[in-house]
């Protein structure tokens, strides 16, 4: 656990990608199996434990600590694991210091009389307080010892479990044994190791390392292209001894036992209008940008001849189980790239409808019937055994059209090309997809994808090949009403802003909250907003502050959003999709902010034509 902890700790503070790679490669090179394999599993997000979940940590925390202090701390730190790691009180018997200062645990202690032995002279060598059950800082080891992060950083305990032991324990312990097991580890681990352990349990390491980066580090061990590791990845299982043997040239390349592997997708860059001047329309092809979920559908035969069918998310997660109806339709060998949509009577439904299907935990026949999954494909990565990724897009498109025609399954269709001969023509299509051939499906289109006709399929986000040209967002001028602290990296900032627009109320004009935005601003703007919130606080509600607002005081935010839907959960009756701060109008008086009627108009228009198909969806569903 110690080496793994040290690795996570350093990664967490290391901003540079290459340095992160070096740190990981160094760890893999110097850590034996199976430890390093479990570490790789942790960093690629493969580990998941049946009972060891965040709820377990919360339970332990509430048991060991004053709940009020715990929740205040959590709110402040913004990260459950870190909060508990920092606060975890010493076990009464585990500390060598505990004997000297042992007194009853604090929270439960009654009046103050007895423990208040005031001794003014004691200030230089004070007796450590134990009333909170918090362990006093131990003297640091002479010479500073190892990279000891500091206090409350306990002296290294005598018995530190290995990462393998921890993983084994978390996987096999029964639900009832688990709390005591984890608490026991927390008692013997130092603060940083506690953090690492709790991160394992929550499954979110938040150390700025993607699965891809971790795999790249493994590949770097043996000068192997990262895609090679990616290709065999889904056939491997932790602790990955075969994989390490291969990259270290001690063993054969692990067979891609999975005949339906995930291939990292090719991603696009946003297109700004000014970029167009630099691009030649003749070199590009365009498709609609569907407002769905990007998926990869892969099928291949096992040695015994059985067809294996898989659906992967964009990040390589196997999501086949969520879409049994779609899996059934995958009667081909190869790999397709496309968009998950819900189709009803050949009409593409809005993202809101799609969400109804995604948000369900169990996939019932009723759900499948009401929200039939559909795959609209736009690329082909492999056909049979043949890898097509090196071919130019225009060639792949030809192969794709052939395959889809051969499939002849209504659940899988081609994303049509948008014909254009100049950027102006494409711009017109983007403005009005319905008129440009999308017809009634226009509601589920959020712009155009613009791809170089000669582009190979390059994993990652290569420059200059694929672009997304999204519809312009809706804009509204709203008034800042409440601000809440962010989480994670923004735990100290008031970075979540609730804003409102004017409406006529019983007592005259009032602001009604219509949404919440927490991005869209630069770091510098965030600092300024944060300061604004602090200096204009009128009320505090726990982590939320109400700021000053009214006709003549307050701050106007220009909010961009993708769509509106009716909502009974919001006081205003509307809910925004993807709202973000577009501009901060330091100059604009709040009285000039928009009124709810502006949103009502967008809503009405949207219901009729573009985005929020909620009402129609409801109609269709009932």
């Amino acid at each position, binding site marked *: 656990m110690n080496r793994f902890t040290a690795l996570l700790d350093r990664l967490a*503070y290391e901003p540079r990608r290459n340095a992160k790679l070096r740190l990981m490669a160094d760890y893999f090179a110097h850590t034996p199996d199976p430890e390093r394999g479990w570490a790789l599993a942790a960093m690629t997000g493969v580990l998941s434990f049946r009972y060891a979940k965040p709820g377990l940590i919360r339970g332990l925390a509430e048991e060991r600590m004053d709940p009020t202090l715990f929740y*205040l701390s959590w709110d*402040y730190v913004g990260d459950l694991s870190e*909060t508990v790691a920092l606060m975890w009180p010493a076990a009464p018997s585990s500390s060598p210091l505990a004997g000297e200062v042992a007194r009853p645990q604090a929270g439960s202690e009654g009046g103050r009389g007895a423990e208040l032995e005031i001794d003014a002279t004691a200030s230089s060598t004070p007796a450590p*307080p134990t009333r909170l059950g918090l362990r006093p800082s131990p003297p640091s080891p002479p010479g500073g010892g190892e990279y000891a992060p*500091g*206090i409350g950083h306990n002296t290294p305990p005598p018995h530190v479990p290995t990462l393998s032991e921890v993983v084994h324990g978390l996987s096999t312990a029964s639900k009832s044994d688990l709390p005591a097991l984890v608490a026991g580890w927390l008692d013997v681990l130092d603060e940083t190791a506690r953090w690492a352990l709790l991160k394992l349990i929550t499954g979110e390491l938040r150390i700025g390392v993607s699965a891809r980066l971790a795999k790249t580090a493994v590949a770097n061990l043996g000068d192997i292209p990262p895609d090679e590791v990616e290709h065999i990845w889904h056939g491997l299982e932790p602790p990955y001894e075969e994989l390490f043997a291969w990259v270290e040239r001690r063993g054969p390349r692990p067979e891609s036992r999975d005949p339906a592997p995930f291939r990292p997708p090719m991603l696009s860059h946003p297109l700004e209008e000014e970029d167009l001047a630099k691009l030649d329309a003749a070199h590009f092809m365009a498709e609609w940008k569907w407002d769905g979920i990007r998926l990869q559908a892969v099928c291949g035969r096992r040695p015994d001849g059985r067809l294996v069918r898989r659906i992967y998310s964009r990040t390589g997660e196997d999501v086949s189980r969520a879409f049994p109806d779609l899996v059934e339709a995958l009667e081909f060998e190869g790999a397709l790239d496309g968009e998950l949509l819900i189709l009803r009577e050949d009409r593409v439904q809005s993202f809101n409808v799609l969400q109804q299907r995604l948000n369900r935990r169990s996939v019932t026949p009723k759900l499948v019937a009401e929200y039939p999954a559909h795959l609209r494909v736009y690329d082909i990565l492999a056909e049979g055994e043949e890898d097509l990724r090196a071919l130019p897009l225009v060639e792949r498109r030809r192969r794709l059209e052939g395959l889809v025609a051969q499939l002849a399954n209504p659940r899988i269709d081609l994303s049509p090309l948008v014909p254009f001969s100049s950027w102006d023509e494409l711009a017109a299509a983007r403005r009005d997809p319905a008129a440009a051939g999308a017809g009634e499906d226009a509601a589920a289109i959020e712009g155009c994808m613009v791809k170089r006709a000669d582009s190979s399929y390059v994993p990652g986000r290569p420059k200059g090949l694929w672009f997304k040209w999204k519809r312009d967002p809706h804009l509204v001028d709203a008034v800042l009403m409440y601000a809440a602290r962010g989480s994670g990296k923004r735990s100290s900032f008031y970075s979540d802003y609730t804003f409102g627009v004017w409406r006529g109320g019983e007592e005259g004009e009032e602001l009604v909250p219509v949404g919440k935005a927490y991005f869209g601003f630069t770091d510098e703007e965030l*600092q300024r907003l944060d300061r604004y919130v602090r200096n204009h606080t009128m009320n505090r509600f726990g982590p939320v502050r109400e700021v000053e607002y009214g006709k003549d005081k307050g701050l106007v935010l220009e909010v961009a959003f993708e769509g509106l839907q009716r909502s009974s959960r919001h006081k205003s009756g509307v809910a925004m999709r993807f709202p973000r701060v577009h501009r901060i109008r330091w100059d604009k008086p709040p009285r000039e902010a928009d009124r709810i009627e502006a949103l009502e108009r967008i809503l009405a228009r949207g219901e009729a034509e573009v985005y929020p198909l909620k009402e129609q969806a409801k109609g269709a569903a009932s």
Partner: protein
Amino acid sequence: MVCCIGRLTWSPATGRAPQDRATLTGSVITAAPSADADAYIPAMALTCTDILTQTPQGLCCPIGGFHIDPVRPVERALITHGHSDHARAGHGAVLATRETLAIMAERYGEGFAGSAEAARLGEERRIGEVTVRFVPAGHVLGSAQIVIEAGGCRIVVSGDYKREPDPTCLAFELVPCDVFITEATFGLPVFRHPEARSEVQKLLESVALFPERAHLVGVYALGKAQRVMALIREAGYDRPIYLHGALERLTELYKSEGVDLGETPKATGARKSELGGAIVLAPPSATQDLWSRRLPDPVTAFASGWMRVRARARQKGVELPLVISDHADWEDLCRTIAETGAGEVWVTHGQEDALVHWCRTQGLEARPLHMLGYGDEEEGDLGASSRPEHPPDAESRDRGEADPAEDSLEGA
């Protein structure tokens, strides 16, 4: 003993009240136009809120006719320490320790107040109806707690304080009292400061590990910078410690007060090659500034109590967090409250809620003052903005250690 410039006079230590009551009350009314102005009642029946109240200017002692660390100009101010959110310019008369006055003069110029008088530590003086005493707070050079007594009630305004030893200032002295007014900058149980020496050791180990890289340590200009230097010297490091220009004057002041900090040349004057393997101190804002480009492949460190929280370190792009604070950590806040024996605790600024909650679980009366102005109005210096090396005024040179309300990276 009596310093008289302008209209106001501080009484001598032994003294009688220098002004009659009418004058005094008058000045209170101008200074604190609040409901408390007519709360004056005879000394025998004083309660702690008669002695000390809260006004928009800050803590106010109506029967003594003064404010403590006021955030806006007042007639008479008692100042606990020199950080810019506690010690502001423009008051009529200021009473503070000699060192604090020197710091204020350094930052704001000699005319920072109508008149200024040095308070001697431990010496009692009568001001209006109260007796006042300054006692070391252990926060930064010259920092003091202010003890106010009247009618058998003793209130200690601790200002900012810490219990950990600091080679650059006098140690905190515990004063038993009835009401203890404490800060709560680090008033959450997640804040447990390690021994500063071990953190400095971490820095020196990193310096040994990367002899070709500069180590750029973000430090607040008053207190933290000098304490970190003193600790580095204590650890036996005797090479020059390079300074950002904004740290120079206060460092010189510390040296002139007898704090030995060794050789501290200006970083801007040094050649880039000279700075490989060197320790360079700069205000937090400069660590991600263009300024830092003069350093060879710097390791960015930051010495602050906030470094306990990972997100804080990452926000600032800190690679080597050093948890060194001039404020009491959670345990020391709790311990100090307990040791004063105070039955009532007021919490000025910081994480009030948690500390107030803790006090109540201990059976103590406690209330948050939600004081604005301590840090709250200060400019955040979370690093994105670039600040000139020689800013026009003291305000922007060092934003003091007061943690603004709860969260800016200031101070600590």
